[in-house]
């Protein structure tokens, strides 16, 4: 296999263990995928490419410029899926104004109090949980609001996949080590085939991004470059799914 993004972080023993233990085999794609776009909102991306150490002064969860390197990848895959009538499902966070429901999130971050004391909005007054305009949901897409890392935790996501007759998910978004991984793990546990788009995911930690891709590729998913994923999607039949009509929704109203 060609060099992978995680190779630089592995010891020689790690490489030998992976090679000898059978992990990282190539799994089947599944026949009826949905594209999942996890948490690509202003709080994780900022308004434009800003160096991460600068960006996190405003948005403590920002992934900085890496988010914007992934944006054209997301635009391309979303475009291919819409063209094929493959479901595009976004997730983003939701919270009470008083932040009571942040729950366990307050246990591990000492800047959490900023969320309720001085709620952040963009220069255009957009909420941090708004999905960035560069990949705005279209009326026929689905947007799942969540409060925990996994897109499945306490949400209707699984029932949507069931209704659509999906057998697989293609996962993109952020963070690779957090909500992407949690969603991948739950999809795997529910017996969905899982693909992770290597250059369609990002994280605020470069090492976490690489190692989490390594872990997911070893155990739960095929981790592929977007070129491979786009080529696969192009091979699928068109119009397989009974998608929402989007009637009565404008692009942003879908959120």
């Amino acid at each position, binding site marked *: 296999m060609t060099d992978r993004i995680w190779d630089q972080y592995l010891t020689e023993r790690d490489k030998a263990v992976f090679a000898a233990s059978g992990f990282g085999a190539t799994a089947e794609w599944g026949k009826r995928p949905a594209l999942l776009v996890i948490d690509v909102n202003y709080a994780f991306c900022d308004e434009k490419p800003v160096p991460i150490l600068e960006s996190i002064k405003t948005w403590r969860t920002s992934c900085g410029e890496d988010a914007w390197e992934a944006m054209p990848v997301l635009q391309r895959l979303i475009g291919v899926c819409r063209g094929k009538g493959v479901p595009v499902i976004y997730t983003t966070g939701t919270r009470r104004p008083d932040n009571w429901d942040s729950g366990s999130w307050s246990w591990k971050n000492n800047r959490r109090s900023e969320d309720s004391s001085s709620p952040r909005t963009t220069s255009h007054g957009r909420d941090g949980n708004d999905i960035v305009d560069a990949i705005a949901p279209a009326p026929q897409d689905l947007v799942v609001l969540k409060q925990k890392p996994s897109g499945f935790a306490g949400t209707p996501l699984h*029932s949507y*996949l*069931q209704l659509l007759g999906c057998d697989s998910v293609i996962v993109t978004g952020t963070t690779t080590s957090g909500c992407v991984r949690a969603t991948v793990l739950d999809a795997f546990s529910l017996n969905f085939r899982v693909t992770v788009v290597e250059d369609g995911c990002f994280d605020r930690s470069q090492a976490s991004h690489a190692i989490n891709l390594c872990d997911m590729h070893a155990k739960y998913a095929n981790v592929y470059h977007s070129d491979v994923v786009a080529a696969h999607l192009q091979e699928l039949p068109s119009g397989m799914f009974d998608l929402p009509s989007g009637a009565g929704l404008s692009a942003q109203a879908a959120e």
Partner: protein
Amino acid sequence: MTPERFEDHVWRDVVPDDLLQIYAPYKRETFVGPNPALLLIDLYNLAYQGGPVPPLELQEHYPSSCGIYAHNAIAPTRRLIAAARAAAIPIFYCTSDLAPMAAPSDVSATRRKMTRRSPEDFEIWHEFPPQPGDVIIRKQRASIFAGTPLISHLNRMGVQSVIVCGESTSGCVRASCVDAYSNGLKVSLVEECTFDRHELIHKINLFDLHHKYVDVMAVDEVIAHLEGFGAQAAVAE
């Protein structure tokens, strides 16, 4: 079944006209959904103990038995299972999870006072023997979905709808039907193969489920659908 016959079910003699009028907007065609699996809820010995007599007569020795209602459902349930096997659709049984140390002592499917139970009480009734290709789900609560891997199995098999029967209508059947519906599955509940300890509670729960969450269907109708399903598969081959 056509919308005109939407109320042609066992509850007709207990549901007054004003109630039917309130529920008129639910009237629709009923059918079995795509890629079905059969869910057999709690067809274990406890439900049949004491024989085919009114459950009130069994109160002392077999308080969990559905008596005559359980026994009346045996013949149609055998026909339903046979049709499901002929159609080669996935079949899931469920029964209580009796594994030692699996749950705190106060965990059970209902709030009823528990009497002493033996493992044999929760074995599947001998007239519905599970076959090697079937799956038996062990559960601790009312719904077959609650805290079990069932939904993962259904996903893996590409199941999009479920045909449900068993006991009790007001308890585990109802809970399982509502969870199936909430999980995005189409639900067909088979009338003659579903039972409870009293006719009234059976009928009213069927009425509730039929209008809100499931299609209550006659066993003949479901079997006819499964026979067509098998015929289609034969043509495809």
